[in-house]
C-alpha cells in the first residue's frame, strides 16, 4: 500500500492509511527520510487519523522515523491519533516519548509555523 507524501513548502506531509502492514511501514520510513534529504525539508507531519490500531511495531516505527529525521536536522509531528487509539497505546506503554504530537493536521501546521517563526 502506497503512503502519499505531500510537499507543502518547507514541510512534508505523510498520510497513513488504516491497514498498513509492517512492510508498508518500513518502506515509508525509508521513503520519508529520503524525501527530507531531497527537499531539504524542515519538518515532517505524519497524519495517522485513519489508523484504528497503533500497536508496538507501528509506534516504534513512528519513533524511529522521528529520530532519523531529527538526525537530518528536521522535526517530526505526529497528528491525528484518535482518542480510543491513544487510550490503547498508553495501556500498552507506548507513549511516543520525545516525539511532538498535535490534534490534527491543522494543529500540526500551526505548531510548526509558530515554532519556525520563533526560531527564525
Amino acid at each position, binding site marked *: 500500500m502506497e503512503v502519499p507524501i505531500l510537499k507543502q513548502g518547507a514541510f512534508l506531509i505523510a498520510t497513513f492509511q488504516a491497514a498498513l502492514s509492517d512492510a508498508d511501514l518500513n518502506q515509508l520510513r525509508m521513503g520519508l527520510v529520503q524525501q527530507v534529504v531531497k527537499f531539504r525539508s524542515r519538518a515532517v507531519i505524519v497524519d495517522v487519523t485513519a489508523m484504528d490500531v497503533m500497536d508496538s511495531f507501528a509506534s516504534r516505527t513512528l519513533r524511529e522515523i522521528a529520530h532519523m529525521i531529527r538526525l537530518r536536522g528536521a522535526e517530526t509531528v505526529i497528528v491525528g491519533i484518535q482518542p480510543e487509539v*491513544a487510550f490503547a*497505546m498508553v495501556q500498552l506503554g507506548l507513549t511516543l516519548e520525545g516525539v511532538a504530537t498535535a490534534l490534527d493536521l491543522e494543529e500540526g501546521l500551526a*505548531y510548526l509555523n509558530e515554532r519556525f517563526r520563533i526560531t527564525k
Partner: protein
Amino acid sequence: MAKRDNTSTDIELKRTEEPSELLRELVAHLRQNRTQLREEWVVRISETRLLTAMTKEEIFAEATSVYDSYVEALETEAFEALQAYARNLSERIIPRGVETHEVVGIVLLLRDVLARSLFAKYQTDFKKLNRILDAYEPAANRIANTVAVGFVQERERVIRQQQEAIRELSTPVLQVRERLLILPIIGVIDPQRARQLTEQLLRGIRTNRAKVVVIDITGVAAMDVTVANHLVQTVEASRLLGATVIVTGLSPEIAQTLVTIGVDLGKMNTVGDLQGGIEQAERLLGYKVASITEPN
C-alpha cells in the same frame, strides 16, 4: 410365595406414589386451602415485621401473586416462569426499599407455613408425611433459591445502573475558555471510574480542540498505585492528542504516597492549586497573565 407377593405390592405402591404424583397431591391441597394458608402467611409476615415499607393491602396483593406463582412452580417445575416472575416482583419492590433479607424471609415463611399445613394434614400417616416432605422440600428450597437469586441479580442491576449514573455526573469535563479544559475529580476513584474519566477527557480534548487540560484532584481523598498509574496514563494519552496536562491539588499526603510507591511524578506537570494551574495553562496558551512583577 407369599413373601414374593408382598414385595410386588410394595413396588406397585411406590410406583403409584412417584414424587410427581405426590407433588400433584400436595398442590391440590395447597390450592384447596389457598385462602386460609395465604391469610396465615400474611399474618406471619406482619408478625415478623417484614416488608415494613409496604401497606397491608400491598402486602396482601403481593402475597396472593407470590402464593399462586409458588404453587404453580411446585406444580409445573417450570423455573423459567418463576425466574421471570421473581425479576418482575423485584423490579416492583426494590424501589419501595424492600431489602434482600425481607424477600428471602417471606419466601422461607411461606415454605414453613405450607410445610406446617402438610404436617397437620398427614399427621396420622407418618410414612406418607415423610414421602410428601421428600417431594416438597427440594422443590420448595429450589423455589426459595430462585426467588432470592432473582432478587439479588435485579438489585445488582439497579445498583450498577445507579453507579453508572453517578459516575457520569461526577466527572464533568469543563471548558473554561477556548482550548482549556478543567477536570475536577471528587471522591473515590476506582479503576472503572478512572477509565471512564480518561475516555471522557480524551473525547473532550478532541471535540473542544483543547491544548491544555487542568486536572484538579483536591477532592480526591486517597490514591493507591493503580489509580496513580491511571492518572499517569491519562496524562500520557492526552499528550498523544497534543494536549498538555497540568495536575493541581495534589495533597502532601498523596504526594508522599506516590513517591513512596514509586510513581514517576517527573512525567507530570504539577502546580499547587487550581488557581495556579489555570494561570500556568493560560501562559501555555499564550495569554498574558497580568502581573506587575513579571518581567517581559
